[in-house]
């Protein structure tokens, strides 16, 4: 008791939460009773001074609010309710009393009569207009809480409660309060008997429609217009009783409002009408339609039209919801339908488009309406189509028809009335019209679209009819007319759609025709026409043949042509066209195969037996048997490259077991000369030929074939055993070969790819190699060797091995990379070593998941965060100029390779270094630095840093960046196209990330400098110069 008094006194003197908490814990522990507090408060509660009374009640309200709910009993609740109710009468204490009331509402022992008391007290004493937002919020919260907990009591109060609440809620304006008010109103409308009060409820809710509220900037309460809209919508759609009152109001808003209001109203209509029900909707049906019609036929914007169409659908759905399919419809839907068909009598007019949109929208309403629409619109359109007077309008008619067919299909596909294909009775006429349309250029496109709609409608066309379509479409593709060229794309898409479901027609009719476009021998060099023809054929084939059966045919037919090219009856004088043709054939296969792999098709692995041997067969034949055109002919590296890609794609898809068999024959061929079992195909390899590509004395053509070997080996699963006695020996052999004997860069790269893949996948069995052999290799080939070119190759090889270890987070990987720093003062290879550091971090397309390489996540981040500080440190060492520059090279090489997130925070340190990097004589590095700066700038653009008070790093260096980029942007000073393009791109981005006042003095100089770049000899550079200059012209404060 005394404690209570003490707390009360302290609190009244200086209100703090502590006293309240102490008292509440006292009550919770049973040391204090509520009655003690009331007693302690006595003098304050009855004080003459309004302020003291206020504090007294406030204190009690706070305590009640924090008190554990189970501490209240029937008696105390009754007393408290009566007490707070009496305090509501007192204007000084009304505010804390409301808080007290709110605190009482969640108490479990609150009995119905308490609830009624609370309501009565609030209704009698609270004048909402006199209260501020927070207090009104309390009032709404009281009712929200009561509605949630004591709904039945409130219901039993009947109209008395409704009138009381409605009077209170009337005129509320604050969005925060409205959110609660709408929620309460929804419950009232749904659960309470509002049959006599619905008008009043309507008045206090519909007056807010449409919501035009816009939250103030930096609104701390986070009530958005969307929240309010959604809350109000759920309120408006709560009771069917609102219907008759609401619809005229909505129509008013649709007719008169702004586009946003229109859209909002249309959306709300679509939500409300189903609730208001069929009778109300159909009573206002015509009025609704005449408003909606306006929005559809004379739309303010496409979105509003879309909403109006959806609202129309809802109107129709609501009206005809309970009709079954078989009864003939009449009334609104019929009238609208006729109205639209009337408009469609002139299909070329602009009104036809919205009319057909309405009919299409009808398709996904109810089955009966859908059926009615089809059975009236289609005969009408067919009649128009066959009418000789309407001949010029066939295009538009077909276009209308095709959208109708598409809409009908979509409704059957997604709707629940699947079994009813209303189009079925008309399919012959429709099909006939579309097929006829194919013959004339003006109606070709809509005809193709329409056919597409027909073939994609499930269960509509039978097999024979689809065959008929394919036949007709073939004629389109075979048409030579210029006009048809654009359309053949669409035609092929149609055939492709058909090929997915019924490939047989395509295989029988389309493919033979397309294959006939592929000659046995390449067209001569000056026969551009012939080349164009086979390219068109190939591009069509490549799009059509992903389906398994078709792909198989494609592989067979193209292989035959390849064989003919590799072993021609008459050796052509000019071998290059043949090579280019072979390249085109193989590229087509590679393109389709890559897509099949992407799709995860299961038929890819079987091509290890059907395609891969043939590839080895022809390529081996090319190098072993032919003597013609060794340099330009079919062993051209570009063709080998495509062949290798094919081998790689197929090998990737094989299981480990299959790979095992394949890799055995592969090694037998490449290391033992036993090529015949591997290269099975149409061509007979010469029996006396000696196949030994790794032999230092092998001709260059043979060594090129290592690309195929490499493509296969890099894709092996880690568990596949390499068929050699010791993998380490193989690796040494490969490295030596790559440094001493390989003749081209491609050959060397191939050897390194193999080495990297094997190191990555077989680390565990390579201990000796990694620990002993490699360091000997370093000493011999890199540290001590005298031939600088050989040293460079060795450095590249080292980088590949390091990367192979790095991607799997091999613990010693960084030790391998760190050895590069030993070379940083080397007179010959220091820059190569520095660039190699970047190379190790660069993502490549050999060490990938697809190739079953062991890759650990975040390896790149780990690498970058290890190397970056070391390199930055190195650039700062003032005693050794050479080392500084080498470190700069390493930085430039590395920064391009590593993820942006790793260096973004280092940018303030990095920026001066990168600026120095822009004067490096190595142009590739310069281009890399500019790319890095560009991607860093992109971060600033995305985050809108320009408006930020804190100047970005770029802004700090803006002036020097501008001038250095200008220097790099003109052809007179910068020979490299990539650098010029990069520099101009950067100049274009600067105005987006730097405030105008910083760069304002530069504007004239930049515009003048850019004018020079406008006259660049290269188109790509000019494009960037134009863009940059446009940005700078617009750059102002």
């Amino acid at each position, binding site marked *: 008791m005394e404690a209570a008094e003490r707390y009360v006194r302290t609190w009244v003197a200086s209100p703090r939460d502590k006293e309240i908490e102490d008292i509440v814990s006292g009550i919770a522990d049973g040391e204090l009773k509520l009655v003690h507090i009331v007693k302690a408060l006595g003098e304050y509660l009855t004080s003459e001074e309004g302020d003291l009374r206020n504090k007294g009640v406030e204190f009690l309200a706070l305590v009640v609010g924090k008190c554990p709910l189970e501490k209240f009993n029937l008696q105390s609740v009754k007393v408290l309710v009566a007490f707070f109710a009496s305090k509501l009468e007192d204007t000084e204490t009304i505010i804390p009393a409301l808080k007290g009331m709110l605190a009482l509402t969640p108490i479990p022992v609150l009995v119905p009569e308490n609830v009624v008391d609370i309501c009565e007290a609030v209704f009698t004493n609270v004048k909402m207009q006199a209260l501020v937002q927070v207090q009104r919020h309390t009032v709404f919260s009281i009712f929200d809480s009561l509605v949630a907990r004591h709904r039945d009591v409130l219901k039993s109060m009947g109209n008395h409660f409704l009138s009381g609440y409605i009077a209170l809620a009337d005129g509320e304006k604050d969005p925060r309060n409205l959110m609660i008010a709408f929620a309460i109103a929804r419950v009232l409308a749904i659960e309470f008997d509002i049959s006599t009060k619905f008008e009043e409820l309507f008045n206090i809710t519909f007056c807010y429609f449409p919501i035009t509220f816009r939250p103030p900037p930096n609104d701390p309460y986070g009530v958005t217009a969307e929240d309010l809209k959604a809350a109000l919508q759920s309120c408006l759609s709560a009771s069917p009783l609102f219907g008759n009152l609401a619809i005229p109001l909505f129509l008013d808003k649709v007719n008169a409002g702004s586009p946003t209001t229109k859209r909002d109203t249309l959306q709300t209509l679509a939500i409300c009408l189903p609730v208001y029900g069929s009778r109300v909707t159909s009573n206002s049906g015509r009025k609704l339609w005449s408003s909606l019609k306006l929005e559809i036929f004379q739309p303010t914007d496409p979105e509003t039209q879309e909403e109006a169409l959806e609202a129309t659908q809802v109107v129709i759905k609501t009206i005809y919801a309970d009709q079954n399919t078989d009864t003939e419809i009449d009334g609104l839907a019929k009238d609208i339908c006729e109205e639209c068909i009337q408009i469609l009598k002139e299909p070329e007019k602009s009104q036809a488009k919205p009319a057909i949109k309405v009919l299409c929208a009808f398709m996904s309403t109810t089955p009966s309406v859908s059926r009615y629409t089809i059975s009236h619109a289609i005969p009408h359109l067919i009649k128009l189509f066959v009418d000789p007077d309407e001949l010029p309008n066939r295009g538009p008619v077909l276009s209308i028809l095709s959208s109708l067919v598409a809409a009908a299909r979509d409704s059957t596909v997604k709707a629940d009335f699947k079994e009813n294909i209303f189009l079925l009775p008309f399919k012959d006429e429709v099909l006939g019209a579309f097929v006829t349309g194919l013959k004339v250029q003006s109606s070709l496109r809509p005809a193709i679209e329409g056919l597409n709609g027909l073939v994609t409608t499930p269960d509509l066309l039978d097999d024979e009819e689809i065959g008929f379509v394919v036949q007709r479409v073939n004629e389109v593709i075979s048409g030579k007319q210029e006009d048809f060229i654009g359309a053949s794309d669409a035609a092929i898409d149609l055939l492709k759609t058909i090929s997915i479901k019924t490939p047989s027609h395509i295989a029988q009719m389309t493919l033979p025709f397309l294959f006939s476009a592929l000659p046995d021998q390449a067209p001569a060099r000056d026969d551009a026409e012939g080349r164009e023809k086979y390219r068109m054929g190939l591009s069509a084939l490549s799009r059509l043949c992903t389906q398994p059966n078709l792909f198989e045919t494609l592989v067979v037919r193209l292989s035959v042509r390849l064989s003919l090219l590799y072993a021609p009856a008459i050796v052509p004088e000019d071998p290059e066209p043949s090579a280019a043709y072979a390249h085109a054939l193989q590229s087509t296969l590679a393109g389709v195969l890559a897509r099949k792999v992407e799709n995860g098709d299961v038929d890819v692995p079987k091509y290890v037996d059907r395609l891969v041997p043939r590839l080895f067969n022809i390529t081996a034949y090319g190098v072993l048997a032919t003597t013609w055109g060794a340099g330009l002919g079919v062993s051209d590296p570009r063709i080998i490259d495509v062949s290798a890609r094919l081998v790689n794609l197929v090998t990737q898809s094989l299981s480990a077991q299959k790979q095992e068999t394949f890799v055995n024959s592969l090694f037998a061929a490449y290391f033992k000369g036993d090529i015949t079992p591997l290269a099975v195909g149409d061509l007979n390899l010469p029996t006396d030929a000696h196949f030994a590509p790794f032999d230092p004395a092998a001709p260059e053509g043979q060594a090129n074939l290592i690309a195929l070997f490499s493509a296969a080996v890099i894709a092996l699963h880690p568990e596949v055993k390499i068929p050699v006695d010791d993998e380490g020996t193989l690796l040494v052999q490969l490295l030596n070969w790559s440094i001493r004997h390989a003749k081209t860069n491609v050959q060397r790269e191939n050897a390194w790819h193999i080495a990297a893949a094997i190191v990555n996948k077989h680390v565990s069995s390579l201990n000796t190699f990694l620990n002993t052999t490699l360091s000997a290799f370093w000493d011999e080939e890199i540290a001590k060797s005298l031939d600088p070119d050989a040293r460079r190759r060795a450095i590249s090889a080292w980088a590949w091995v390091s990367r192979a270890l790095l991607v799997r987070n091999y613990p010693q990987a960084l030790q391998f990379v760190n050895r590069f720093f030993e070379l940083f003062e080397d007179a010959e290879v220091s820059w190569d070593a520095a660039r190699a550091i970047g190379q190790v971090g660069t993502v490549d397309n050999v060490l990938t998941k697809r190739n079953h390489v062991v890759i650990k996540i975040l390896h790149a981040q780990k690498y970058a965060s290890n190397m970056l500080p070391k390199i930055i440190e190195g650039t700062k060492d003032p005693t050794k100029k050479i080392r500084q520059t080498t470190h700069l090279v390493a930085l430039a090489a590395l920064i391009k390779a590593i993820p942006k997130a790793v260096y973004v925070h280092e940018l303030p340190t990095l920026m001066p270094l990168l600026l120095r990097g822009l004067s490096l004589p190595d142009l590739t590095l310069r281009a890399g630095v500019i790319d890095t700066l560009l991607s860093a700038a992109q971060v600033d653009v995305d985050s809108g840093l320009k408006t930020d008070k804190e100047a970005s790093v770029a802004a700090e260096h803006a002036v020097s960046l501008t001038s250095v980029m200008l220097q790099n942007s003109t052809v007179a000073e910068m020979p490299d196209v990539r650098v010029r393009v990069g520099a101009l791109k950067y100049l274009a981005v600067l105005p987006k990330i730097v405030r105008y006042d910083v760069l304002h003095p530069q504007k004239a100089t930049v515009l003048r400098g850019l004018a*020079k770049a406008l006259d660049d000899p290269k188109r790509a550079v000019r494009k960037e110069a134009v863009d940059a200059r446009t940005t700078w012209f617009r750059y102002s404060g």
Partner: protein
Amino acid sequence: LQPKSDIIASARPTTRRRTAQARQSLWLLNDEDDDDSTTYHTDDDEPEPIDADEIFDLIRFISDPEHRSMTLEQLAVVSAPQVTVAPSHILVEFTPTVPHCGMSTLIGLSIRVRLLRALPTRFKVDIRVKPGSHQSEHAVNKQLNDKERVAAALENPALVDVLETCLENVGRRGL
């Protein structure tokens, strides 16, 4: 100045450069495999002179002053064949949509400003309405090719604002 109809708007004038190049080359290089770098990572230093297609590309996305959502290309006001390029002279012809179109000067001026900013100074640029396509053809032509009147027009801030909105999306490219 009315958009003619949807059918015309969607008819794209083709630019001929790319197809011509493709036909000439013997080897088919796959677009899919090429990353950006190869487009200009050409070792040859062969100059690519400014041609009509390039100029057309600069002006095709200027928006119409009356129909902001439509471009001059979509309204068939400008097209590649209407651009003529000589070593130091460029002629751009444009077709107002109707002979009494009041916006012709503004359209011409927006083309003028765009080319002023995007072409090297060594070119003399002439901008004309297509002969016979406008009532006051002569007056419009004269206005557009009079240096001082163009300069005076560009002193008018309200006019410059309108021009800038027309040139807003001009950075899009079609080639």
